[in-house]
């Protein structure tokens, strides 16, 4: 009768079928009665935390289950959907911000190391550049927008970036791409976006101050190519420079929280074959002008504005490119993603290169992650001094050369000579 009693208890409690309950009961009675050493195979299901309890363990288990669905997703679109479908209150990060010392904050958010000076170009251009033609093209675009073109309404000064500088940048990018495409064939198959938004959403933070960040950015132009640019430094390159750690909440920056759609977008959807980025061109708005900052006695923030814009925009762009390839914070990148950026306010240009080495920025993934993202950058230099009538005075060839070098950067397969030598 004891065995029968055990059997009934087991069947009611566990809800197992008749056969397995009988087996379990019989083995239990056998083991207790015979006192043999432990059986080699576990007969009980693993003991795990509950799924629905209000406890940290249950929450961890739910998070793991969600991460398992992301790992198991078949296509990139599905992965992105699962990662972004839950909306929480998150900080909105604006690359073009008036906040003081925003670049240090953004370095902390994106785990980026900033190095001044650009990385050495991997290869010198093979054919000599026709600098005269390039300079003429740049001057023509400049003069057309500033002087020659008679517009219907003369735009007020505060709208000058959109009405004058933005078309000039568009013209410049298109003209330079056209002139340089014989030397860099990837430019001929590249796709140029004009003012397409770039979105990125990432989680960074400790348990005490959890925070997702969402970045919304509209670069003036961006060039996307079908193949990836080569890396500047190896993936696990460790830079001795420290990343600034901010001791305050991000709200102090100021950063504000909103809750609405999360999205990840590089400028075009996942189906586009041109899914890797080449160069972005950003235009600083009127309220972040140099003259304004100088009048407010904030001359040191001029460079900060450029750097903050570059770090945030390029991190988001490379991060979104990596997510389009299926990487995310639990599945870190296996190859570095590289992009270049040019930030300008119409006269002053500064150049940045960004290499994304890691996407694992969540508290859980960052515990043993030695990799850091790297951003190289220059100070801002003027392209010209003044424009008087139909003359450009003081044209600076170095700035133009730097832009040309940026545009001549090619994916690795197009450089057979380098591999051989």
């Amino acid at each position, binding site marked *: 009768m004891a065995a029968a009693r055990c059997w009934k208890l087991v069947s009611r409690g566990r809800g197992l079928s008749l056969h397995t309950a009988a087996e379990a009961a019989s083995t239990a009675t056998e083991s207790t009665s015979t006192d043999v050493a432990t059986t080699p195979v576990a007969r009980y299901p693993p003991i795990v935390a509950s799924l629905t309890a209000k406890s940290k363990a249950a929450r961890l288990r739910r998070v793991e289950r969600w991460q398992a669905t992301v790992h198991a997703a078949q296509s990139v679109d599905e992965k992105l959907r699962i990662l972004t479908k839950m909306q929480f209150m998150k900080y909105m990060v604006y690359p073009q911000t008036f906040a003081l010392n925003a670049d240090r904050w953004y370095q902390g958010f994106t785990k980026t190391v900033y190095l001044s000076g650009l990385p050495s170009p991997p290869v010198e251009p093979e054919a000599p550049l026709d600098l005269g*033609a390039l300079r003429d*093209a740049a001057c*023509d*675009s400049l*003069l*057309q927008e500033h*002087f*020659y*073109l*008679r*517009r*219907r*309404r003369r735009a007020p000064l505060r709208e000058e970036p959109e*009405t004058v500088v933005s*078309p000039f940048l568009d*013209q410049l990018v*298109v*003209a330079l*791409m*056209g*002139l340089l*495409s*014989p030397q860099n064939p990837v430019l*001929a*198959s590249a*796709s*140029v*976006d*004009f003012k*397409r*938004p770039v*979105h990125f959403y990432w989680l960074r933070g400790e348990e005490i101050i959890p925070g997702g960040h969402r970045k919304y950015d509209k670069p003036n132009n961006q060039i996307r190519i079908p193949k990836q640019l080569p890396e500047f430094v190896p993936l696990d390159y460790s830079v001795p420079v420290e990343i600034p750690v901010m001791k305050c909440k991000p709200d102090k920056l100021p950063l504000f929280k909103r809750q609405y759609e999360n*999205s990840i*977008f590089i*400028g*075009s*959807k996942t*189906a*586009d*074959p041109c899914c890797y980025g080449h160069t972005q061109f950003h235009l600083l708005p009127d309220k972040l002008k140099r003259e304004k900052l100088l009048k407010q006695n904030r001359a040191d923030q001029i460079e900060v504005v450029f750097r903050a814009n570059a770090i945030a925009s390029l991190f988001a762009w490379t991060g979104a490119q990596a997510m389009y390839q299926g990487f995310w914070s639990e599945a870190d990148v296996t190859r570095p993603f590289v992009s270049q950026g040019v930030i300008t306010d119409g006269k002053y240009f500064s150049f940045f290169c960004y290499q994304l080495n890691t996407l694992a920025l969540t508290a859980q993934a960052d515990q043993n992650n030695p990799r850091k993202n790297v951003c190289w950058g220059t100070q801002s230099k003027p392209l010209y001094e003044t424009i008087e009538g*139909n003359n450009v005075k003081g044209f600076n060839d170095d700035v133009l050369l730097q832009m040309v070098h940026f545009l001549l950067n090619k994916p690795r397969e197009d450089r057979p000579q380098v591999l051989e030598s």
Partner: protein
Amino acid sequence: MAASGYSSRGTLIGMALASRPAQRAFLGSGQLGFGACGIPRREAYEWGVRSTRKPEPPPLDRVYEIPGLEPITYAGKMHFVPGLARPVFPPWDRGWKHPRYHRSPPIHEQPLYKEEPCYIFHQRCRLLEGVKQALWLTKTKLIEGLPEKVSSLVDEQQNHIENQDERVLNIISHARLWHSMEDIPKRETYCPIIVDSLLQLCKSQILKYPSVARRICAKNHSLSAAWTRESVLLQVRGTSGIRLSAKDPLPPIASREEVEATRNHVLETFYPISPTIDLQECHVYDLKDDTGFQEGYPYPYPHTLYLMETADLQPHRFHPEQLRAKMILFAFGSALAQARLLYGDSKVLEQPIVVQSVGTDGRVFQFLVLQLNTTDLASNEGIKNLVWVDSDQLLYRHFWCRPVIKKKVVVNLITAPGMLLWSVGHHFVLQRQPCHPTHHPTLDLPAFIPAAPPQLPVLFSEAFWPIPALPCVREPVGPVDFQPETFRKFLALYLHGCPEP
């Protein structure tokens, strides 16, 4: 419509546009009515809803109507007095010009007022008679199809870009679907993206045609050209689309003999409709010829004008006929302004000026080449200008942003002895067939296996039970009926004028 002013700076005073949809499209969303903005528009005070109308000013006292009488008012008392007349004050003058509170003087007092009206064609003018009217206004003869020189460029194999079709298909998909986060992007975004991307693709031919580098695009330029046709003053003004300018002029297309032969051509009239219908009549205007660029511009010759119809709603967009008329007039305006600049006025040109134009709404393309032979446009006789038009070229017939999935369900029900109702999807067929009762092999039930109905094939032999559907994708995502010829013509028009490699 009341006459409105058009000053030399090109600002439109008053709102006397021809048609309501054009007016709405022109004004945009800022004037949607008081519900949208909260404050009634100024016009609402004059004619609008009674609840928002400003109260009528009280009528003047009778004493003002009697001449010779000096009315005694309470102006000096600084407050109302019952027996005295209401004072009439002169309108308050601020003393300086405030940009926000500028009231234009009445039309007759404006400095540029002229008795003779001028009919202005701007970018939202929809001509009633379309191309016929445009031809009359510009004294032009129409030739269907693109000219020989351009057609030969279309067919030449060496002009083709590698993977041309694949790249154009990518451009179409990018513009129609990929570039934005929305499920179905709107025409306002995808139309300019298609034109920009196609131009970018054409520009990549710089390897074979280095003179492509001697061109530049410009947006937001403002054109103005004026001429007389049979003692009617006409003007073209406006800014529209992208203008591709070049350092070298396009060579003339028609030979001298063909130009001379146009003397015999008679322009088609459309009496009783006046040729100036749908043009904006102005009494305040400035007659000037302005190419849109200052002197000394390094790219002085207009090469091609790209006009885009980007309105989302179909009534706001131009019809193809109206778009072609607009293209003719704007191309003619650019050519005329250029000719006046180079050669002066009113003569037959030794070197005819050629300007091209491409008009599109993102899917249908219109191509046009105009050759200006003469600036002597006052009379109907003499040499005419020539225009070659290739109309309604589809780049693709349709674009599916989402896949079209149809579920096919094969259901076979017995309705009456000897009658069968077949249904596949939404199609039903009632059939009377002699059926042979047999036994269902597995389920031990009688089954009827009829012969197949005439239209539908027998898909399943056990045709008794409804069989669940498998969704099948009838149309995948992407363009439908892509025509590569259209892009070849686009490329040919772009490369026209480049010397042979």
